[in-house]
């Protein structure tokens, strides 16, 4: 390796470290500022809680054996609705791709459903499914499914025309065209729909928990509001922030693995 190459690599490495240091600095100073402002009484500790109160709340929750249960319940709901949303979205997109006539027929209805604020369906869902996990999953599904269908379907439509022509000249069957061309060439869009889907699913699950639940992070927030203990609310928000970041990162890792050669 030449000296210049070494210098270049060193520079890249240093740059990465600098970014991380700045990020840590931002978080730490934010937390300090928050704590300081609350302690000095500049902002209300009742409304905005404080980092130390959040830590205390987490400790209490762990002691009362609720902390991990709330996280587990929310994660479980997210996992179920996300998997369902993505798989159903994928299957429906495939059907629409294979049957273009059907796609044309239901296009306006998909658009309508996509723009409809799904929370408006909340009361209906609760009465139809009852105040249980089913309602929460259905709510999340309503929110993430349409987006998945539309994203994946557009990915399928974006298949390279030339390669499609090549497959036809090779006499490929519809099934071969799907499995060997259309689906693999949509990996990128499918992963993109994962990214959209995970954010939408979190919205749906928390919305669902606001409406019906007895456990979960959404419940923690609603409970905190009802008993005027805003420490719970803040704790819930922070937990959600961390969870969404981790889930998103997991998808990025998956993306890097799947799309290595593209």
């Amino acid at each position, binding site marked *: 390796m030449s000296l210049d190459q070494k210098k270049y690599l060193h520079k890249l490495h240093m740059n990465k470290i600098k970014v991380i240091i700045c990020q840590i600095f931002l978080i730490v100073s934010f937390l300090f500022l928050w704590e300081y402002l609350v302690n000095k009484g500049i902002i209300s500790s009742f409304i905005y809680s404080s980092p130390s109160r959040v830590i205390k709340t987490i400790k209490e929750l762990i002691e009362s054996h609720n902390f991990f249960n709330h996280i587990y319940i929310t994660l479980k709901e997210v996992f179920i609705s996300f998997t369902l949303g993505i798989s159903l979205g994928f299957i429906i997109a495939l059907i629409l791709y294979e049957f273009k006539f059907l796609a044309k027929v239901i296009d306006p209805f998909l658009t309508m459903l996509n723009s409809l604020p799904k929370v408006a369906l909340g009361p209906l869902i609760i009465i139809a499914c009852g105040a249980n996990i089913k309602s929460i999953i259905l709510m999340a599904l309503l929110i993430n499914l349409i987006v998945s269908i539309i994203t994946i379907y557009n990915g399928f439509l974006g298949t*390279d025309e*030339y*390669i499609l*022509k*090549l*497959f*036809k*000249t*090779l*006499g*490929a069957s519809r099934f*071969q065209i799907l499995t*060997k*061309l259309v689906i*693999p*060439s949509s*990996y990128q869009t499918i992963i993109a729909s994962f990214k959209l889907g995970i954010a939408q699913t979190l919205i749906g699950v928390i919305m669902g928990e606001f409406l019906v639940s007895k456990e979960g992070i959404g419940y923690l927030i609603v409970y905190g509001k009802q008993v005027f203990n805003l420490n719970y609310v803040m704790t819930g928000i922070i937990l959600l922030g961390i969870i969404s970041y981790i889930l998103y990162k997991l998808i990025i890792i998956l993306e890097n693995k799947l799309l290595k*050669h*593209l």
Partner: protein
Amino acid sequence: MNNLLEINNISKNYHTKNGEIEAIKNISFKIKKGEIISIVGPSGCGKSTLLSIISELDHDYFGKIIKDNNLKIAYMLQSDALLPWLTIYENAILGLKIKKRLDNETLDYVNYLFDFYNLSEFKESYPKNLSGGMRQRVALIRTLALKPDLLLLDEPFSALDQQSRLLISDDVYKIVKKEKKTVILVTHNIEEAVSFSDRVIVLSKRPSQIKNIININFTNQESIYERRKEKYYHQYFDTIWKDLDINES
């Protein structure tokens, strides 16, 4: 020699919302086995449409095509159409895979072609790591691997730079001659048409009809570089140029 393919009175109309367009009108010609034919014509005159009809991609036309039912036709496109998520080797055997003709014999032939084009060391690379010329060679291997009786080339070199274009068209010419393949080449490059083929069919603008058929009588049958030095090369060029020119005005 028998005719490999006979095209009788082919016509095709396109239907759009704004009306009907006559794309091709009464085109007839014959190809003998081992012959190389070029089709030239103004852009948008329906050259590619004609290839689509011959390769049975397009069934919606008038007229008749007479050919052996077992005739193996391979189609090579302007874009290399390589799948980015497959290695070069996997791309090269894609056609065989789809046609379910993967066996030791066909794979040996693919390996032979990789050696022939000096691409063996890149077998495990991915398309994005190869130059345009190399990618087009892989597309060529993918086409030849099917051992077609009739090779349809739809402007296969036009996306390449001049240097790669000459190198690869010479490569194609050599292998086609060596294996005595029958070829229909669609191009709008007159030099390419003259140096490559035994006969050049000049099409008029839409609705496209046969304007002229020119037999190219060169002694050299080995390399397009040598063929370009032949005595009547420029005369052929001028004849075709004039045929095209009259059409444009």
